[in-house]
């Protein structure tokens, strides 16, 4: 058993194991954060390498979302630092895109799908002439071809989340931060979007940080799964996922290694809850 019930240290055993891991893109070093007088996260050390797909699991209230917001630059740590390619992350960056769980609130209801993607293009100052072609391309990429003129409230939840992904891709992100993006979707839609995200991460080479409470989803998507414990939130387990890519909803989930990791992660969560 390859258990690691401690924080992964940059340059330590875990950073070394993952084959795909390139140079560090995002790194949390000794991060503590206190919000409203409550200690939310304690002593977080986490390094995410170039092109790596890291999933974070843990019970609700363990600080998963707070960690994502720290990495996004939406929060500042009370102690320690968040670094993006050796620069301190003091505010959000356009090449670090966030995909929120509540797509219904994160999209502009008064803009069409086209307009919502355009928002990100306006932000990065994309030349006007190229925008329409880029929007068509992005909508096609996330599986929404021909839906450009629909308003978000005319779309299903899955389509709205696809639209939010298209908007985040319009930022040309080198990092995708996803906060339980499929938590509110039904199982079939969710599986389709999991594969979509994997193929997008692969084709863009974006480094991905994915928060979820679905353990199987975390193993299916990730190169590495980080488990957090609550009160205060801390890294309690790190699992390297050495399942072959591209992954497949049937064969990957039947792989003995998948089942072994699933068991290990379930045991860990059960123990944490006991």
């Amino acid at each position, binding site marked *: 058993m390859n258990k690691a019930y401690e924080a992964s240290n940059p340059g330590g055993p875990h950073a070394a194991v993952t084959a795909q891991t390139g140079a560090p893109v995002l790194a949390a070093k000794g991060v503590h954060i206190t919000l409203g007088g409550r200690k939310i996260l304690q002593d977080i050390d986490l390094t995410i390498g170039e092109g790596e797909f890291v999933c974070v699991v843990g019970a609700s209230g363990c600080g998963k979302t707070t960690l994502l917001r720290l990495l*996004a630059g*939406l929060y500042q740590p009370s102690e320690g630092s968040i670094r993006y390619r050796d620069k301190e992350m003091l*505010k*959000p*960056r*356009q090449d670090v*895109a*966030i995909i*929120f769980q*509540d797509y219904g*609130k*994160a999209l*502009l*209801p*008064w*803009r069409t799908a086209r307009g919502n993607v355009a*928002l*990100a293009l*306006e*932000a990065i100052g994309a030349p006007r002439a190229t925008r329409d072609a880029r929007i068509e391309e992005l909508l096609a990429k996330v599986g929404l071809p021909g839906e450009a003129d629909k*308003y978000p*409230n*005319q779309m299903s939840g899955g389509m709205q989340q696809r639209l939010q992904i298209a908007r985040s891709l319009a*930022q040309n992100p080198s990092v995708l931060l996803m906060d339980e993006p499929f938590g509110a979707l039904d199982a079939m839609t969710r599986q389709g979007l999991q594969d979509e995200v994997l193929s997008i991460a692969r084709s863009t080479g974006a480094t991905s940080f994915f928060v979820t409470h679905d353990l199987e989803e975390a193993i299916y998507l990730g190169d590495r799964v980080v488990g957090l414990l609550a009160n205060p939130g801390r890294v309690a387990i790190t699992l390297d996922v050495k399942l072959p890519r591209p992954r497949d909803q049937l064969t990957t989930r039947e792989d003995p290694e998948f089942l072994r990791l699933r068991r290990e992660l379930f045991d860990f969560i059960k123990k944490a809850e006991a």
Partner: protein
Amino acid sequence: MSGFATYDARGVVIPVGLIVLAEVAARVSGLQSDSLAAPSDVVVAGVEALLDGSMLIATYQTLGSALIGLSIGFGIGLALGVLLGMFRVLDHLLEVTIEAIRPIPSVALIPISLLVFGFGYRMEIAVVAFATLWPALILSRAAIAGVEPRLFEVARALQFGLLARIVKIVIPAALPRVFVALRLGIGISLIVGVTVEISANVIGVGHETMLAGQSLRPALMLAYLVWIGILGWGVNAAMLLAQKHLFGPAANMEARL
């Protein structure tokens, strides 16, 4: 809310029946009254007043002062509402002042306004402005405060500056609700305007209604009453139409108030 076409024709039976009944009753009884008139006489008096121009002049006076008053009151209210909605400090600073002045019934200001401005447009405009300022302030403040906080995070993540945030997020998000406030404000401006005319002023449809009543011409008085109803209905219908055209599908989501 899409005009007459969708109304059930059966709904017309009762009002038409009542009018016919009133007409028959008036004819049969040979009505001679200082306060009532047969529907046909009301129509005749109304058409006469329309044709000689007196009704149109009065309408122009009423709508004119109501709309100018509304522009002033709503403009000030909107500006204050946006400021208070965006800057909580200002909101706290002005809370007591606003809550002290706001409950004063606008019509209670008629005597003061009359004293300051005398008869005419200005006193009416002042009272209407006072009456429409508060709904504009309170609803636009609520509209700004009610903008989905997630959208501000999206704007932050995309690194929009203050101006871009106001133009791209705050204004479009708040606009449908502000428009609802405007619809409300127009209704209030008409009500208050006519009230000022009835109670004090010497212009407008309210004054004409009073004048007709006092000169014992019930048909003309009732014709003005009907006309005021038509004005109110027309203005509201026009606003609903404008709302639908301006905000389309987004209005379905944002303007439910």
